[in-house]
């Protein structure tokens, strides 16, 4: 199927600002789904609230646009009740890690087979540019007019420590890599996390004088490096891209099948 067969044309144009990175994420996501060759009926996309979460409205899957921060909790109910479905959960950085932080670590801990896509633009865009848990120390936002004093999470480290069994990071500049990662994450039998650095020129870029969308993407090119590269040794401030974790561990729904077997005295 062509990529456009996976979208709901009726609901376009989308609401994202000119230059927003989320459209690139949508594109890479659809290409990943195309490569996977899955039926649209097998895919459920569950999202929360924010610019990123509107992605679910534009795709022709079963789509559930939920509450701020709660997407993974709804998704857990969907997956657990019908494990044969592929559940993809796009979230923003504030959505996934501030209001939804608890759901994020517990979904990772259970290792339930779902794919969390954290679209990290380091800002609350829909409400007009307030700092998020990923904005970074010193950044400018409408709620940090004198500079932000909150330190950031490292999403990959957090996901890894919480128990996610596939953890990767890429950027909107690296769209092909993003497609490969999303594809592998969906195929992974466990909780998978892909952090995607995606530009918000309207709020984060403008307030922090990072230039337009193209300049922000260029920054992703020049300030990121493959995991374990020589460049990282020489310049530790570079952000690593690539797959941090990919390991086998019993998946939650499969484990629950064993609970059912035990409860029934050995009869499945």
């Amino acid at each position: 199927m062509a990529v456009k067969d996976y979208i709901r044309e009726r609901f376009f144009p989308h609401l994202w600002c000119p230059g927003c990175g989320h459209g690139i994420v949508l594109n890479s996501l659809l290409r990943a789904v195309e490569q996977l060759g899955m039926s649209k009926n097998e895919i459920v996309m569950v999202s929360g609230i924010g610019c990123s979460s509107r992605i679910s409205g534009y795709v022709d899957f079963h789509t559930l646009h939920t509450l701020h921060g709660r997407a993974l909790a709804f998704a857990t109910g969907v997956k657990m009740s019908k494990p044969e479905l592929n559940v993809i959960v796009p979230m923003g950085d504030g959505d996934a890690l501030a209001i939804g932080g608890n759901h994020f670590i517990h979904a990772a801990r259970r290792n339930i087979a779902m794919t969390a896509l954290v679209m990290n633009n380091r800002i609350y865009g829909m409400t007009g540019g307030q700092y998020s848990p990923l904005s970074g120390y010193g950044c400018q936002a409408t709620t940090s007019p004198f500079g932000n004093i909150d330190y950031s999470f490292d999403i990959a480290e957090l996901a890894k420590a919480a128990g996610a069994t596939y953890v990767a990071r890429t950027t909107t500049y690296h769209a092909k890599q993003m497609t490969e990662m999303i594809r592998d994450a969906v195929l992974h039998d466990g909780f998978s996390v892909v952090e995607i650095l995606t530009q918000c020129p309207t709020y984060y870029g403008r307030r922090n004088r990072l230039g337009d969308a193209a300049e922000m993407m260029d920054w992703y090119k020049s300030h990121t490096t493959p995991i374990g590269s020589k460049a990282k040794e020489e310049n530790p401030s570079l952000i690593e891209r690539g797959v941090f974790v990919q390991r086998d561990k019993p998946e939650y729904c499969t484990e629950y099948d064993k609970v059912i077997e035990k409860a029934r005295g050995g009869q499945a």
Partner: protein
Amino acid sequence: MGNQLKFIQGNEVCVEAALYAGLDFYAGYPITPSTEVAEHMAKRLPQIGGKFLQMEDEIASVCAIVGASLTGHKVMTATSGPGFSLMQEGLGYAIMAEIPCVIVNVQRGGPSTGLPTGPGQGDVLQARWGVHGDHSIIALTASTHQDVFEMTVHAFNMAEMFRTPVILLFDEVIGHMREKLIIPEEGEIQVVDRLRTSVKAGVDYHPYLPREDGRLPMSDFGSEHRYNVTGLFHDMWGFPTGNPGVVHELLRHLNDKIKNNAETITRYKEYYLEDARTVLISYGCSARSALHVVENRRARGERLGLLELQSLWPFPYGLVEEKCAMARQIVVVEMNMGQITRAVKRAVPEPERVVLANRIDGVFITPTDIKNILRLFQGKGV
């Protein structure tokens, strides 16, 4: 059928009734005095091939059951006091997105963490208005284990029939008390199953276009029809909209579907009302003491009667007015500061005849308490 007779806690009755109604997915978080619901679900659900999930909090619990309902399952969660407060966000979502689910609140003394092991009935108005925004709600209750069973099945039936969350408002006394229960035979109580769309694959399906009777046939996630579900105001495809006409229609629909079906939803019991001059109105554990008083006084020839409400919301205004038409005095017995008393005053033509008999100290209201209050009202002293 020896195994159909049980001597168990109210919380366990609720579990057995939910299974009778077809529940096969539960998510919850431990909290007193509702925890036994989760414990029994954890044991019983896998035995029938169902799923039990212990989530990270009550917010996640209500969200998880909404997700599972969308794949076509009958779902429930249970909580108490502070947990019910946390569930309001997800409850509002289920109202807006019209997702069938059952939320049990085994009430304890509140506000805040209050009295975890003490009884209270202080969440009656929260059940009605805890969710922000204009909305309607169904809330049911019960005073005996046999009724807990029936009302739990009724809750699932109403949730499926009207595509809405239903609240089961039990209390600590009912939840923890052990009493006889006869589990009904299969088919003895009607079980309503979900109305699913007959629209064929490839034909445009409108998940939010009500039929003429107001009902909306559903389609399970994973089947042929792919659609959007959102907590935002939405059109007939489930896609967000701010169109004033669509917003108006949806808000009307959400309220009317409950209001216009109040008779189907309403459940009550009545005792000695035919000639009663003093009518007690009560519900839940308080109704047990109220009934005891009524039977005791009747034996002495006093014209007392009891109207026991089993559905609190939508409030049966017409029923209360009708049943109290001959009453000189109406005494509402409840374990709060008059949450149903307010509604009863609105229901009758002479609200000054309505008085409250209550206890709010975390101790179960006894027949003696009610008798003493009645004597005071009658000017006889305690």
